[in-house]
């Protein structure tokens, strides 16, 4: 029984960060129709930047975000402006190919700089634990949970009650009408993509402590994010956070109850099952 609670707790905690990853992807999809297949590799990039900052300046990942978030936000803006924007409006598959290519570039770039050995980035809280009855909670997971939900809440408020947030939703709901309001649609798209990548930098730091990283891991994160986004209904805020929790829990159950490869398949199995019975995603009304 305590194993069950353990799996639930761990899944919920990590799932919140998966939800956050997926919010970034959903926002970008919502305003520019781009599904970014290099999403997970940007997470890798964020993680390896933290590793580099630890090696060079012995910065804790939680401190490194002061540097990695702005840097990756800027990288996101440049990537959108110079690589993705010229392709948007062309064939959907061309954009997919472009982001897949970007994924390979990032992966191999990281491989060249850091080598292929799994690496770890220590953090002060890495091995701290919190006991809740029989359930052992790792402090990094708790931090990830808290920060992810605070950030998701912040995003929600931003989307609802600021001009920038309303512009994002306007572009999503009708880009032509948004342009007629005087909204610079192109700028909203760049800024949303940059914001999405900036969020990844933060999520990378949240997922990092205690996790060995390697340059090829990006695809796994991309796929998890895709599962969550599709499960949540692409642009549905609440649905996506919920989807993150579901996938997080599925993953935790898989690794605790099933061994090896089968356990890793758990999120996909759950995903397929949910999509079979609820192809419209987890929630009913879309609150975009």
């Amino acid at each position, binding site marked *: 029984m305590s194993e069950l609670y353990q799996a639930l707790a761990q899944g919920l905690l990590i799932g919140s960060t998966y939800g956050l990853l997926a919010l970034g992807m959903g926002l970008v999809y919502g305003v520019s129709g781009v599904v970014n297949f290099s999403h997970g590799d940007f997470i890798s990039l964020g993680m390896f930047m933290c590793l580099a900052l630890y090696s060079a300046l012995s910065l804790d990942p939680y401190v490194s975000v002061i540097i990695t978030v702005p840097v990756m936000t800027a990288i996101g803006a440049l990537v959108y402006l110079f690589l993705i924007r010229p392709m948007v409006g062309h064939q959907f598959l061309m954009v997919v190919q472009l982001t897949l290519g970007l994924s390979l570039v990032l992966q191999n770039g990281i491989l060249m700089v850091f080598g292929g050995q799994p690496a770890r980035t220590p953090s002060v809280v890495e091995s701290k634990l919190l006991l809740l009855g029989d359930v052992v909670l790792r402090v990094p997971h708790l931090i990830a949970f808290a920060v992810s939900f605070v950030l998701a809440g912040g995003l929600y408020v931003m989307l609802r009650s600021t*001009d920038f947030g*309303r*512009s994002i*939703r*306007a572009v999503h*709901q*009708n880009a*032509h*009408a*948004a*342009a*007629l*309001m*005087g*909204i*610079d649609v192109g700028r909203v798209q760049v800024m949303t993509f940059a914001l999405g990548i900036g969020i990844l930098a933060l999520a990378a730091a949240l997922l990092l402590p205690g996790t060995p990283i390697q340059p090829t891991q990006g695809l796994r994160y991309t796929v998890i994010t895709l599962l969550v986004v599709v499960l949540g209904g692409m642009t549905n805020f609440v649905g996506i956070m919920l989807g993150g929790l579901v996938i997080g829990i599925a993953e935790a159950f898989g690794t605790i109850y099933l061994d090896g490869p089968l356990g890793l398949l758990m999120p996909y199995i759950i995903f397929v099952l949910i999509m079979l019975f609820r192809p419209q995603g987890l929630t009913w009304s*879309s*609150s*975009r």
Partner: protein
Amino acid sequence: MLEIESLTAGYGGVPVLRDINVKLGAGEIVGLLGANNAGKTTLINSLSGTVRPISGRILFQGEDITPMSPRRRVERGIVQVPEGRLVFPEMSIRENLLLGGINSRARPNRRRQMDKVLELFPRLGERLSQNAGSLSGGEQQMLAIGRGLMAEARVLMLDEPSLGLSPLFVQYIFEIIDRLHAEGLTILLVEQNLNLTLRHAQRCYVLERGQVAVEGVADAVRNDPRTKSAYLGL
């Protein structure tokens, strides 16, 4: 106030409009008529800047605005109420109105402007937090016009405001248009409905396959045989 000089514009390099010359005087209400596919929406979008001209110029208050982005044009006060209304369906009336006034010139006065708009359309004020997508067609048209007014329009361009509305609503919308005109707003009224437009506009242009076929004061346009042929496509 607004002058289109030998404008040729279209999509993907293929012209839809050819050598268009249109003028709007300050405070005027001008009709733009034409059958389906005549190019009315293309013309209005050229004024908004969402369709790029192939050649020709657009002047606003003496300034060449041809190279300007849609955003800069809205800031100048050139505002469109689009065909099919295009309200933001999953946002409330209030949010739609706020978005209407999001341009840098209108933004500081949004509260005051919203009071004015709600005075004009009390019906919108009664349901400020209702989603625009759940409004009736007529209410959406009110919202679309209100949203345009939020931008502090100097020229308001209405693309087929009567489309799909019941006669009662059409009458109401045109009363509003007359009222805005009486308050001094310059209006470009795009319509398929000939009689309705001729009744409300001071001058009219009739587009036929991308060219101005007839122009003049309302009565002259009404009696011009080319008006009818432009409509029947003869």
